[in-house]
């Protein structure tokens, strides 16, 4: 890196931004002169693999990024996009044999080096200082300092300059916490420009934006791209990919499937590349005769869900598919009464019910196995017995409860669900993910519920326990119960569901019958082709 100029005696971090930028400018011109043959290449990754204990997240990926281009990354949930980004930002180290070239030179990335080389990652969740201003956020940790004093005027001048260049109306003095997600993204992009970053990685930047904001952001990305930066763009929305992308790389199950120039590419080709799993990853489930309607949602609105209607019958699993952020869990909370139902009706056994809180939902025989097992499903420091009996307190009349009865109930479920522990006096925190999930199930079985909502039933659970949980779900169906299953695990949705509802942006895009359920159909609807 360039020579760091220290100003003032106490200015440890005083290597001022403008000087650093000037240094890099100089360096780049020399570098360009040296290798004018492929001067536009910023990054080249080859042979990238990443294994976690028990999981191969990435396998032999190659990827490259040029100056002035938007290179998109596409793939389903769990295809390996996030892992690849984390390697690029230095958060993960790839397995041995990987090669990363930055402007032709081999590098071993760590978060600090990635930053100083000029690779900036803008994550979906913002890491910002909410109480500081836009300007202070941009210069946080790299303030322009002269003799120990902040050069606010200079910092404001630079901030204003960049915001103007991006045609953004943001004020440098606005509080970061007051901006919406779109504004915060723009500030981070502005930061990338001020510090003359070389590459910006955007992870799902449009996830929670309105359509006007998306347009605005895409325009800004176009501007940034034209100023010579390389952009890696990750999105579930194919429209955006086709609008601003130059090239696209498709990942599936940790492998690189294809790389295309966007020009001349059709959406169908892209979707074909994204689907096509190995059939051995599918579970074969036993079908159960389907009975009468037990649950019905009529134009349910609230918590982000819009006009959702569906019916649920005894003995069936209704899968709810969609990309992350499509409003599936939000809808489940409305159905269970843990989020407000703005309007619409919920019917159980043909009768309209009002779930103003979960207590009423439980009385109406509903059960909700949440996505976040550790925080909303379990009482981690408490014993299995205590966890199993807590929800059924709603249905008990007696004020006095006996620990011995609780222990008996707990032990019964430990045996019934084969929870691996000596007895029900083990604390939930000491169990593995799969066994913890079984405790959550036991908690709901104990309430004698009829309608089960499973939100990501096997998230973070090993393969063996997954099969066991699937078996338990089928057993529920055999007892005439009904299941709504939200899942981002494509094989799970396809192999377990009798019908599938696909959601996007809080809306129901399609309802697929057993015959229509396929990876291609689900993916097509979840990335935005509305059923006509």
């Amino acid at each position, binding site marked *: 890196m360039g020579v760091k100029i220290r100003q003032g005696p106490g200015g440890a971090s005083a290597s001022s931004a403008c000087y650093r930028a000037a240094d890099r400018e100089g360096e780049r011109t020399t570098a360009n002169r040296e290798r004018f043959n492929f001067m536009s290449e910023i990054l080249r990754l080859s042979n990238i693999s990443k294994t976690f204990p028990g999981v191969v997240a990435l396998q032999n990926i190659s990827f490259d990024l040029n100056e002035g281009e938007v290179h998109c990354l596409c793939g389903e949930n769990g295809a390996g996009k996030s892992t690849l980004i984390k390697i690029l930002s230095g958060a993960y180290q790839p397995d041995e044999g990987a090669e990363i070239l930055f402007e032709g030179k081999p590098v071993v990335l760590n978060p600090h080096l990635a930053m100083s080389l000029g690779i900036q990652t803008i994550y979906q969740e913002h890491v910002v200082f909410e109480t500081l201003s836009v300007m202070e956020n941009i210069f946080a940790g790299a303030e322009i300092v002269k003799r120990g004093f902040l050069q606010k005027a200079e910092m404001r001048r630079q901030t204003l300059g960049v915001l103007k260049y991006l045609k953004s109306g943001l004020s440098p003095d606005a509080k970061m916490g007051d901006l919406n997600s779109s504004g915060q993204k723009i500030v981070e992009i502005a930061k990338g420009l001020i510090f003359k970053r070389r590459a910006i990685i955007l992870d799902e930047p449009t996830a929670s934006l309105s359509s006007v904001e998306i347009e605005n952001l895409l325009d800004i990305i176009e501007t940034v791209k034209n100023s010579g930066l390389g952009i890696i763009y990750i999105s579930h929305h194919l429209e955006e990919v086709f609008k601003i992308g130059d090239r696209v790389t498709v990942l599936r199950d940790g492998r690189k499937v294809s790389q295309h120039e966007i020009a001349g590419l059709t959406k169908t080709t892209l979707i074909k590349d994204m689907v096509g799993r190995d059939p051995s990853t599918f579970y074969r489930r036993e079908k159960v005769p389907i009975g009468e309607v037990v649950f019905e949602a009529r134009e349910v609105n609230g918590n982000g869900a819009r006009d959702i209607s569906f019916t649920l019958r005894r003995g069936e699993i209704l899968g709810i598919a969609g990309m992350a952020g499509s409003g599936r869990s939000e809808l489940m909370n409305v159905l269970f009464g843990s989020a407000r139902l703005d309007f619409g009706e919920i019917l159980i056994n043909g009768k309209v019910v009002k779930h103003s809180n979960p207590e009423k939902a439980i009385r109406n025989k509903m059960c909700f196995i949440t996505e976040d097992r550790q925080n909303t499903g379990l009482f981690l420091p408490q014993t299995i017995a205590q966890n199993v*009996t807590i929800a059924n307190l709603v249905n008990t009349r007696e*004020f006095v*409860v006996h*620990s011995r009865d609780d222990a008996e109930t707990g032990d019964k479920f430990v045996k019934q669900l084969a929870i691996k522990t*000596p007895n029900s006096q083990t604390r939930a925190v000491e169990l593995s993910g799969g066994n913890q999930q079984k405790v959550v199930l036991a908690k709901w079985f104990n309430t004698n519920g009829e309608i089960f909502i499973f939100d990501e039933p096997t998230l973070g659970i090993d393969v063996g326990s997954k099969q066991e949980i699937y078996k338990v779900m089928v057993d529920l169906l055999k007892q005439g119960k009904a299941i709504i299953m939200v899942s981002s695990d494509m094989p799970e949705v396809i192999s377990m569901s009798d019908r599938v509802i696909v959601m996007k942006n809080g809306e129901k895009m399609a309802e697929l019958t057993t015959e229509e359920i396929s990876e291609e159909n689900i993916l097509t609807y979840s990335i935005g082709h509305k059923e006509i």
Partner: protein
Amino acid sequence: MSEPAKRKSLFQRHENLRVLSIFIGFVIIIVLLQLITEGTNRFPTFISPVNLLNILQQVGVPGIVAIGMTIVMISGGIDLSVGMLASLVSIVTATGISKWHIGVVPSILAGIMTAVVLETIMGYIISRTKVEPFIITLGGMITFQGMALLLCNSREVIMNRELDFLKVNLIQGARDPFNHLSLIIPPYVLIFFLIALLGGLLLNYTKYGRRVYAVGTSPQAAYLAGINVQNMKLSVYIIMGFLVGIGAVMLLARVNTGIITLGQGLEIDSIAMVVIGGTALKGGKGNIVGTLIGVFFLGSIGNAMNMLRLPSEVQFVAKGLVVIIAVSAGDVSTRISGFLSRRKELRWRAEQRAAKGESVESTK
């Protein structure tokens, strides 16, 4: 071949044993010190029946408040206002008796009701907003102090021994077999034990108790398990108000004067007792037996210092150190036992692997 059952240390299985053993160690040290300084021919005064009953009298009122504080803290809350609330209650009751002349029982009821109503208001704010209970009750503490001072015009309210029936000696005539001093058990000591018993039963054997623990462990999970988290949080403060009311009347009976300093430091003492007893500040963990140990432990420190003829200033240092030691001992012992069990498991795995390796070779 099953994995060896994870053996937990004795202290982990019976959480109260840890602080109990520290307490017993403390008692032994004091007794030994007394034997050394005063010779072995006299029975150590620290553990003489008359002194033990004396300690009970001293801890009775803070003990009652500590029972309430245990419930509040298990639910994830805290109450800093109890000290000043007790002062306010004592002044209300004393004023009722000696200035308004509304009779003894109505005055006592007025005092207790004051506490219940004020705690209900705080509990309502705490349960309906996201403001930390620490801050709300801190505000309550200052407000109650002001209310108390306004009511008594910053003067003390002296009574005419109307509440003496609360401190009659229940075992009149009993004498200490060692030094022949008369033994005293006033009614409020019994009330303290009764409340402790009820508190223990409530937390351990009722639906309500289960829910208190659930709310303290994880409010979100509790809500999704059908618990009305807001009302649970409100209810613990109502219970607290009732117990502070009772405690304050007892305190008033002891000193016969309603005065602002009466409840001073009560919040610190009761919180210290509860945390010594193993209740976690973040909620979800703790029990009444632990709190009882904490009550006796903290109560006996000052007394022991007196027995050893140490200046009273030393008491604060000792009390503070006991809080620190009792609370951090838990973490230290968990770390040690965690380390030991990990090592054991690794060794077991290694043995398994070795055994498997051998069996593979033998089949070849």
